[in-house]
Every structure is written in structure tokens, then in C-alpha cells.
């Protein structure tokens, strides 16, 4: 069993010299001959050669756990009726991850049964991959063995939210998202899925010359421990805004949907729980200003429109 995280690109250490130096072009030639360098730009550190993951690495909530399961016949006997079962045991449940549950009729020596399993991790904490193999030997003996592979699922993000209630029934949601992994994280999508009562406007881009530019600038990714602030404006839908009584007390605002990518497009996705807020209480009767002039002349009457709502 081997966890299939994305492969990494091989980096080499460029050592160059100039023609007049003692080694002549020896060093440069050596680098040219090295298959891991980029041809024509050997000094470029980041090569094109893929290398397989060197250790289990970290796995984070919302990412997909992929694993290669290979059952290899090390013996010199043919075995029959091989059944491979891969289960993932979490703290709360047990999932079957095997693609097929059908038994393989026979496995010749030095042959193998391969399976690649995928599972989107939805729980934090200890996970145990349980691989069970049962088979029948030539003598008809039924054999069975299990192997356990334990790993920890960690939390990738820290999400904090804060609501600002505007006088106009609008609600501003500020969300801080912090990358608490150890690798840079490209935030592909951070959106607010509003509940049925609200419409949402994202305030994370600035329109300049017709092109919307992210408020985060050219830096499209979050370094480890970096935090980003997202801002959303929620407006109650017309039908609910009318009935002031509805938006009172505890209301469900919606939830944040976060999609990120890391090394070579390794994808992760998380949603927060329903974000709730306590709508400001106005007592029984609420007075709000609908219109008011911003400047008035002295000694001249002016109009103010007030709205009194019976909550």
C-alpha cells in the first residue's frame, strides 16, 4: 500500500562555471547531461522530472485520500479466489473503499492485483485503512490476513467570521481564512452560499477599468499561516425584507464554501456549518430613517421620511 499524493518535481542544484574557469565547460556539460535539468535552461532549478511521494505526508480534511493497493504473490504457487477488501475506519464510521468486491479467480506467482482507491476525507482525527485479503491456496486451504495503515487527518484551515449589521437591514460578513497547513495553498474559490432569505454580493474584487481585480492582488495563494479576509454583503430578499418580523432573532445566513488546491492541483474542499447570527433586536417598535437631505439651508423647512415598523 502506498499513498498516492501528487508527485513532486525534481529540483537540481545548479553549479555553473564560465569558459575561462579551470573546469572549462565541464560543469555546464555535466548539467546538460543530467536528465533532470531543463534542456536549454539548465540553471533553472525546477526541473520537469516527476518523483514519487517520499513519505506519507500530511492529509487534510476535505482533501482526497488516494492510495495504491497492490497484492503481490511473492510465493511460487498459484493462489485462487483472491478477495481484496479495503475499508477506511474513522472515529465514527467504517467505509468500504474497494472498487470491486468480486473475487479474482487466480493469481500467478509474481503477479499482482492492483487497485487505486480514492476517498474524500470528511473527518478529522485518526483514520485506519484496513486491507483484508482472503485467498485459497493450491491445497485448498482458506487463508486470510489483514493489514492496518493508520494516519491522522489534520485541519487545513482556520475560519473565523464576524457579522456587521447595517441600519439598512444589510448584513456584512467578514471571514478570516487562515492556512494552517505547512504548504502554500491556492484558494480557488471562497464563496458564501446564502440561505434562502438573502442575496449575496462578494466584495472581494475591485473594479478597475472594467476589469475586476482581486483585492488580494497578484498573490493568488496563501502561504502557511497566512490569513485572508473575505467580505460579503448580504441583503434580505425583497419578500422577506417586507416582513420585518421574519428577520428577527436567530437567522441562518448561509455557509462558506472553500475550494483550494495545493501541489500539482491536489484539491481540497470544505464547507463551514451554517453561519448564524442574532439579528439586532429593536424591541416592539422600530424607527428607521428612509430619507434625509444631507445639506439643508438655514431657516428653511425640509423633509425627513421616517418608517415605523411594528415588529
Amino acid at each position, binding site marked *: 500500500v*502506498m499513498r498516492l499524493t*501528487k*508527485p513532486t*518535481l525534481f529540483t537540481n542544484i545548479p*553549479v*555553473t*562555471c*564560465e569558459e575561462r*574557469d*579551470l*573546469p572549462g565547460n565541464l*560543469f555546464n556539460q555535466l548539467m546538460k547531461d543530467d*536528465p*533532470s535539468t531543463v534542456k*536549454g*535552461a539548465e*540553471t*533553472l*532549478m*525546477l526541473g*520537469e*522530472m*516527476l518523483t*514519487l511521494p517520499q513519505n506519507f505526508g500530511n492529509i487534510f*480534511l*476535505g482533501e482526497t485520500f488516494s492510495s495504491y493497493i497492490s497484492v*503481490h504473490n511473492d510465493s511460487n504457487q498459484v493462489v485462487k479466489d483472491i478477495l481484496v477488501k479495503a475499508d477506511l475506519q474513522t472515529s*465514527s*464510521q467504517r467505509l468500504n473503499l474497494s472498487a470491486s468486491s468480486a473475487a479474482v479467480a487466480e493469481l500467478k506467482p509474481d503477479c*499482482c492485483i*492492483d487497485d487505486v482507491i480514492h476517498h474524500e476525507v*470528511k*473527518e*478529522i482525527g485518526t483514520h485506519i485503512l484496513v486491507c483484508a485479503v482472503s485467498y485459497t491456496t493450491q491445497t485448498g486451504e482458506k487463508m486470510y490476513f489483514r493489514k492496518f495503515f493508520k494516519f*491522522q487527518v489534520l*485541519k487545513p484551515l*482556520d*475560519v*473565523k*467570521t*464576524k457579522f*456587521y*449589521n*447595517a441600519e439598512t437591514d444589510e448584513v456584512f460578513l467578514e471571514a478570516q481564512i487562515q492556512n494552517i497547513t505547512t504548504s*502554500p495553498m491556492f484558494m480557488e474559490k471562497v464563496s458564501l452560499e446564502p440561505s434562502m432569505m438573502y442575496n449575496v454580493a462578494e466584495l472581494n474584487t475591485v473594479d478597475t477599468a472594467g476589469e475586476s481585480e482581486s483585492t488580494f492582488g497578484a498573490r*493568488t*495563494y496563501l502561504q502557511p*499561516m497566512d490569513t485572508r*479576509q473575505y467580505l460579503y454583503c448580504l441583503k434580505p430578499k425583497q419578500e422577506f425584507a417586507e416582513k420585518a418580523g421574519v428577520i428577527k432573532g436567530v437567522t441562518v445566513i448561509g455557509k462558506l464554501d472553500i475550494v*483550494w*488546491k495545493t501541489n*500539482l*492541483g491536489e484539491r481540497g474542499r*470544505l464547507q*463551514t*456549518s451554517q453561519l*448564524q*447570527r*442574532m439579528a*439586532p433586536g429593536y424591541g416592539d417598535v422600530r424607527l428607521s430613517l428612509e430619507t434625509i437631505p444631507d445639506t439643508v439651508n438655514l431657516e428653511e423647512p425640509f423633509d425627513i421620511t421616517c418608517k415605523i415598523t411594528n415588529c
Partner: protein
Amino acid sequence: SNAKDAKSTSDEDDSRDIVQQKTQEEILFHEETIDLGGDEFESEGNETVSEDSNNFVDKLNEQMMESVIISDSPNNSEDDTGELGCLQEIVDQMEAKDNQKTQTEVDKEEFLSNESETEHEETPKDISEIGTDDQASLKEESLQEAAKEEPKLGNNVPVDTKPNNIDESTPEDQILSPSTTKSSSESEPIPVCTIFSQANNASSQPQLFLPDGFEPQMVKSPSFSSIIETPVKSNPQVVQPSPSLSKFFGDTASTNTLASDFFDSFTTSSFISVSNPNASSSVSEQMSSLSNGGDSSSSNSTLHVQNGRSEADGPPSSLEITQSPKPFSQIQAVFAGSDDPFATALNMSELDRRNDAWIPSEETRNVLISVATQQYSTVFIDKENLTMPGLKFDNIQGDAVKDLMLRFLGEQAAVKRQVLNANSVEQSFVGLKQLISSKNWRAAVDLCGRLLTAHGQGYKKSGLPASHTTDSLQLWFVRLALLVKLNLFQNAEMEFEPFGNLDQPDLYYEYYPNVYPGRKGSMVPFSMRILHAELPQYLGNPQESLDRLHSMKIICTKILEHLEQGLAEDGSMTNITQENRQASVQLWRSRLGRVMYSMANCLLMMKDYVLAVDAYHSVIKYYPQQEPQLLSGIGRIFLQIGDIKTAEKYFQDVEKAAHKLDGLQSQIMVLMNRAFLHLGQNNFAEAHRFFTEILRIDSSNAVANNNAAVCLLYLGKLKDSLRQLEGMVQQDPQHYLHESVLFNLTTMYELESSRSMQKKQALLEAVAIKEGDSFNTQCLKLG
């Protein structure tokens, strides 16, 4: 009501602060609790998908709500808001109203009531509360669950504590910022003044010497007696700074001879190695003194003086005094040749000047000027300013491959392993090159060491005065470069150390006007500077690398400026033909490009991708012919970050720029990029298709071969993948026994069977036949 609202928000801020504080402390006491709480919260959204767990999670959520809120309700105007009026105002302006969370738990209200005064000291009170609370929830949870989860859940601890710190700092920053800017503007003029005065001081010293060398030296000359006291190997430093005139006057007659004796034997030994750089056998002390005698008797006595000065700081002054009877005009005549810029220009070959040009620091330049112009004056050089390198370790020769063979394949097999070593080649540059090209870098390092020992810079010679030649520095460069290539960064750093910042006066040709008459510039090869600058990044100090690279960049730019202004590289008024100027500009532009390259690589290593990408973009300006490769590289950087879209954009740019390459190469590059793009989209099948297509065009493409095999593994075809890699290695072992390929291969062997050892050993045998002693055996995972 606004004010009220604000107050309540601030209250809540405080409460949150305390809560955070608590969580922080709580972590110390009950690690599991907080983790579980946080976990459930995060995972909750996803849980809905899996129905089984739904109920359970909901239940948990009910219990765990407090901690959810805690991690869930931050404010911007952090902690100390309660005390900070201005922040409250900000809050008011924002019309932030009552911020109460819907989830008003018992806990929370307690906090609120506690919260009137927000002082951190108060937190302990509440800790117990929340602690017990969480403990309770933990209990409940553990009832429902198998106890499995509890061990090893402490991972998130540092994570949770940090945000709090950040929060706390923000408001202070806001408040402080105006005052700091003010103060900085006020203090500006002062440093300017000091800078000027310092500069004056620094430059005035040598200028004092310039008009006539006599009087100032007298004052500064070190006492002779102390010279005598100092043994040859001790620090002249001790000698130099203690000038006692009384002693000097009293002892002149008696000490003079002694001093000069000492001085002769001392300096000339090094002098000889300067003049005879090819003296391959080790220069013994006696030999040097012998030849020294011969030299001193020869007509050119001034030569002695010159060298003496360069070697040790103290002695020269004394010598100068002995020489002082000479008429000034005579001295002038002797040195006229080397001093005249036009004469030197004639002597100096264009190529040398172009390549060796370097701009020394002010300090170094002053020393060099005084060496060049003030033959009879003392040039005081701190020993610290001299370069005294030496081998730091004797012998790193060894053959890891052979060792492994001994271990796994037995002695018989190991005997068959034959590699070149330092003994088996000619003890010269030719042999050295042979070792390098046959990838026996360890042996090459060894040979470099031997050749350097012959230069008097061998083992344990570090810290002893040495003289440098073009060859000795080239040898150092090769040795250090090989050490870096062997990933022996620590060793390289150790041996680099005596070279300081490669700007010491004795590393310039001007320091040895008699050995290199008229030659100017630095002996240090440019590549060695690059190496020196790059080294710290491999030792976990990329910032230092960047600093060094930036100062290199400044000098390169300055040289280019000089060239543009019609000056020589170092800014002197030397006539350069148009042709030579052009060549020089070209050389220095490419060197500047090389520096930028290193910077980009360093930034990449630091994972500062934005700056790295910028740096690679600027590299393209210097190496336009590498544009397609560099753009692809940038694309791969974005792939690594996970920004597939931007990567795609760059790959498209590559396709536009690919015409700079010949047909086949550009075709391969385009296909390669497409394959990578598919990798980024998790489409291994397509990626494999493109890699295979490259192989159809260029069947010997190692990268495509390897990458295709990797894709096969991800597609669940272990055997096919193995076949491909094995075939590749067998087909052309000379070329494909590469670390990365072998690493992949051994990894797959391990996956394939628990009996991977045999196959790995077979690889070892293949390696033993083809590879030199520099092979990195780690990739075989035979450990």
C-alpha cells in the same frame, strides 16, 4: 443607541479575546478537548454527505457549540478595544451594531459578565470554567466513541495559538503607525551627516599617505620589539596596533636586522608561491627562505617591500624605514611603470580585464590604491582583511557505492568496483578534469586539496598568511563547487569561511603588482562568487543568499553603467575599442542574468513564489533565448502552488514563444506542458498520453519516459510502470541511472513486493558499473 452598541461590540470583542485566551491556555491543559471541538466544527459541513454520521455529528455540534463559536467569531478590532477609544470610534463609524452571536451559550454569557474590564490577568478565572465544560463534552464524546481518537491529537496546538497573537498585535499597529512615521521623517537628516563624516574619515586616511609616504608612517609604525616577539605563525594583528615611538627610536639599530630577517623569511615564503604558482611540490619553509635569499640579493629590492607589505601588516613599516634613505625620485622611477594607468592598460590583455573586472568596496579599494601608489608607505591591513584559506578536512574520499556493495553483495563483488581516485590520475588540472567528467567528484575534491596543499593552502593552513594566484583560486572554486555538487554544503561553507565576502584586498591582482604587473581586477572567478552567494540557501539561510546576490547585482549593474559611460569596467578611464566594449557588455549582461537566475532560484526555494516569478521574468530579459523554457518553468511553479489557471496561461505563452526553439524541441515542450496541465487537473490518463506522444517523437527523452511511468502508477498499472522504467534504465544506463529515476524505481519495488531487496541490489550493481564516486546512494533506499 450607537454608543451602546459599540460598547457591546467591544464587550464582545473582549469576550472573544478572553475566549481565545482561554482556548490557548486550555490547550495547555486539555489538548484533546479543543481539537475535537474544532474538528467537529470544520468537518460538519461535509458530514451531511455521509448520512450515517449526520445524527451523531449534530449531537456533537450541540454539545460542542461553544468551541465552535470560539473559533468562529473573530473581530477585526481586536482585544484591547475596550480600552482604546479610537478603535471604538471606528467601530461606531462602521455602524457595527450589536454583534451578539446567535449561539448565546451559558458559557458565553458568563464571559460577558466578566468582561467589563479586559485584562489578560483575568483569564485564569475563566479557564477553569471552560476547561470543565469542555471536559464534560469530551466525556460525552468519549462515551459515544471508541477511545481510539484520543491519542495524538495535539497537532493543532500551535495553530490555534497563533491567530490570537496576530489579533492582539493589530490594533496596536494601527495606533502606533502615525507616530512612527513622524519620528522617522524627523530623524532622517542626522544619519546623512554621519555618513559624510565617516566617509571623509575613511578616505582621508589613505589620502594623507598619498602626497608623501614618509611622515604618517613614522607615527604609525609598530614597535620593532613586538615584531620580534611575534612568532611567524601568530597574528601580526597583535603587533600592528601597538606603536611605541620610544621603543622604536631606542631599538632601531639592534632590531632592524632582526626585523628584516624575520620579515624576509616570513614574506618571501609566500612570495615564492606567488611567483611560482606551478611549484607543484609542497613548498617547504626552508626552500622558501633559500630562494628568498636569492631574491633579496637580486636587483629588485622594492619587490620585496611590496610583497612584504601585502603579506603582513606590521613588518612593512619597518622595512620601509630601512628603505627610507633612498632618494624619493629613485623610488618614483622604480614604480612609474606599474603606476601609470596607460602603461598598465597596455600590459593587460583585454580578455583578462573584461573577465576579472570587479568593483571592490571602498575600504578594499583604498588598500589597493595605497598598494599601487605608495610603494614605500605602510599599508596597514588587518589580518582580518586578509584571506587565509586552508583545507578544513583532509579527505572526504570514499565510495559509498562500494561500501554498499560490501554490505550487500559481498567482498568479491565489491572488488570489481573500480573507480578513478585521486591517485590514479595525473596530479594536475588534466587529471582533475578527468575525475570530474567521470563523475568521481569526491576524488576530484581530494585532488583539488592536494593541489592546494602544493600551493601552501593545505590542511590546517587556514588562518596562516597565504598568497593567491589565479590558479589557487580556480582550484578553490573547483573544490568548493564540487562540494556543493556533492551536497556537502557544510563542508563547503567551512572552507569558504576564510574568504569572507570575497572582497579582501589580497584577492585582487593589484595587490601583487610585481607578480601581475599591470593586471587589474579580482582573482576570484565570477562563478565562485555565484557559488559563494548561493551556498547559504542550501544551509537554510536563503536571506543571506539574497543579500549576497543583491550586492553582486549592484556591482554588475555598476560595471554595465561604466561601460555605457565609455569607461572601463571598473570605472577607470581606459580606452576600450568598440568591439571590446561590446563583448564586455555582453559578458556582463549575461553575468547579471546569471545573478538574477540565482536570485530567482533562491526565491523559489524560499517559496516566495510571487517574487520568484518576477525574478524569472527578469531573467528572460537577459536570456531571451531561454524564454520558452523559463515560461514553462513559471508555469510549473504555478502548477506547484495549485494555480492551474495561471499555469495554463503561461503554457499558452510558451506555445507562442516556442518558435525560438527548433521544431522538435518546441514540439516536445508544448506536449510536455500539456501533460503537466493534465496532471494538475488530476487527469493522469491524458497526461500519460502526452508523455507517450513525446516518446514517439523522441524515444530517448528521459523525462517523458520517467513521467509516463509515474502516470502509469497513478493509473493503477504498477507492472507496466515498472517495465517502462526498467526498460529505460537498461536501454541506456549511462544516461538514465539518474537519482530521480532510481528513486522512483526503488519506490515501486517497495510497493510491489516485500522482497524488493534483490531488485534494489541489482540496481546497485548497475550503478557500480556506470557511476562514479559521486553517486548519491540514498536514492537506492538500501539503508
